[in-house]
């Protein structure tokens, strides 16, 4: 077989193939549910109901989507410039660490001053966490995939050390857990009585800003150019290494905001299970969004809905909650294939 390029793919092809990928994934998921001895139709219904079926479920989905918007944006920004940042998990934890260091009483400022400071400090921590592997890439040619992956393990061990040492909560009954943030350092709820914090709104604002940056500024143009063809970008006189470093700062900072928003908004303190793989799931979110910043918001809601729905479904039916992870990984692969086939067709020889 051979692949032939399609210079101008039809709209049907551009929309139809991704939809087909999602439908195929859904059918595959139903097969898996049947394998576990449950009725596929009922399982699908339970997932949908668990994700958006009630006010409580919907808010749970929005809350779960919040960190995924940030990590999804981090991955989308980096992948756009072909900077393979697989370390959003590490950057998230670095952001969370700085939020806790500064937000547990060290800075006794009013909320209006403290919250922006915490967010910026977290972003700097995350940016530095990605700067190291990026400098290793630009200076020494070390592949950033492996280094960012390995640093995830280092970061988690570092947090584990902090939680058993300098950042340990004296009132924590021996649990590895940080002290709680002071009230001024907590992100308030969007509306009184509504269990949704400002982190979600911040995520949407961040998505819009990234979109403006990518499509309306020279910096964004350079990031995309480096990703599309690094040789052409260099030939055109772009400072490729500096563009990559800039991308790294932005991507790491965005991932760190997930840590800030989880600590300051959702949890109020830092534990070792702050992120159940939000960094890795960010890759799925970004790919499902076709790396588009506004698409990331939609994809994060979708992915969060699958997780929340599957959690609630597995309590009612005898299907393990890991089905959500299988579905999302399958969706990722199917979507990548669909996009690949949008611009190329298979010719059998």
């Amino acid at each position, binding site marked *: *077989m*051979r*692949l032939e390029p399609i210079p101008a793919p039809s709209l049907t092809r551009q929309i139809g193939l991704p939809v087909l990928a999602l439908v195929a994934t859904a059918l595959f998921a139903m097969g*898996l549910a049947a*394998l*576990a001895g449950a009725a596929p139709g009922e399982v699908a219904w339970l997932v949908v109901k668990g994700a958006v079926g009630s006010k409580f479920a919907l808010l749970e989905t929005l809350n779960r989507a919040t960190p995924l918007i940030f990590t999804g944006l981090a991955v989308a920004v980096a992948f756009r410039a072909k900077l*393979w940042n*697989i370390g959003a998990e590490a950057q998230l934890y670095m952001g969370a660490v700085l939020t806790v260091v500064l937000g547990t009483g060290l800075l006794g400022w009013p909320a209006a001053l403290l919250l922006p400071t915490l967010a910026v400090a977290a972003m700097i921590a995350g940016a530095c966490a990605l700067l190291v592997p990026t400098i*290793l890439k630009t200076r*020494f*040619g*070390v*592949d950033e*995939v*492996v*280094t960012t*992956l*390995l*640093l995830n*393990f*280092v970061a988690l*061990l*570092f947090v*584990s*050390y902090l939680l*058993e*040492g300098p950042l340990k909560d004296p009132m924590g009954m021996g649990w590895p857990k940080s002290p709680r943030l002071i009230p001024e350092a907590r992100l308030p709820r969007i509306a009184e009585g509504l269990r949704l914090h400002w982190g979600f709104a911040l995520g949407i604002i961040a998505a819009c800003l990234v979109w403006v940056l990518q499509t309306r500024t020279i910096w964004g143009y350079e990031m995309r150019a480096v990703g599309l063809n690094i040789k052409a970008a260099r030939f055109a006189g772009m400072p490729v290494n500096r563009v990559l470093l800039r991308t790294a700062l932005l991507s790491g900072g965005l991932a760190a905001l997930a840590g800030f928003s989880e600590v300051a908004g959702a949890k109020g303190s830092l534990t070792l299970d702050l992120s159940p793989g939000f960094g*890795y799931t960010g*890759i*799925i979110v970004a*790919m499902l969004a076709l790396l588009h910043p506004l698409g990331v918001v939609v994809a994060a809601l979708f992915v969060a809905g699958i997780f929340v729905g599957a959690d609630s479904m597995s309590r009612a039916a*005898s299907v*393990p909650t*890991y*089905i959500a*992870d*299988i579905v*999302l*990984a*399958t969706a*990722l*692969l199917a979507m*990548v*294939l669909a996009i*690949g*086939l949008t611009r190329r067709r298979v010719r059998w020889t």
Partner: protein
Amino acid sequence: MTEILDILLSASFWAAAIRIASPLIFAAMGELICERAGVLNLGIEGIMVVGAFAGWMAVYAGAGLWMGVGVALVMGMVFGAVHATLTVPFGLSQHVVGLGITLLATAATYYAYRIALPEVTSPPKIDAFEPYTVPILGDLPLLGEALFQQTPLTYAAFATAALTAFVLFRTPLGLALRAAGENPASVAAQGLSVTGLRMGAVIVGSGLMAVGGAFLTMSAFDSFFFEMVNGRGWICIALVVFGAWKPGKTLLGAILFAAFDALQIRLQQTPIGADAPYQVFLMAPYILSILALVVMSRRASVPAALMVPFNKGER
């Protein structure tokens, strides 16, 4: 310092190093075969999880130990076939597909575990491989205990490394495979199928990765835990770079790395370990891998067509 010296001179330390190296040798050889043919396989971490589960589960269900290894091999090849189909003929991003395979394989394993053993609180144990003392060689001082009193799977790991080196550098198939990773157009000009060679390499390589995972549940331990692979796959990718894509050097790198890992475990029990937090010791292997990458990347001999898809007739 005397403590470190004492450790380094003990046979049991080197026996542990060889034991820790064994799964890395299997998986790193698998990754090396893939990359030599021009395909980066980031599915390695997930495929090791699959292998660890599949081999153990097969034995638990009543299969023999070698049968379990075979099941792990085949399951690894199945996931390898998915990876190969998406990255070779379809030419999709090897980064994204590889990570997708890791996520899929890990999730599928955990799902299968929960379905197969819905009620258990702690995973059941199996009768794992027992150490086998090689006659005569096993009685040698120091060397005997370090090298020749291991489980059969460890001997298989070393045999795999030797076989990989032989096939890659002493057979026409190996030449074609390496050429597919260096200059695929030349392979196609010879009338050979680049697609076939690369897919074969990814499928066989993935099988070896799964056997590496199976070593963990069938030889190093006797049970399956979540997170038990714990980044070993990513370390193998670093080992292949460290070994400059050569089986012999990669094997040495794996033993060196394992020796360091065995050392940090033992150091934790000495007075040095009592002073420093244990996380520092656990971090060391990952940081060491990164440092090794930095040092080696200056004189890296990356296969020229690594991560470059080949589409016949396209220039």
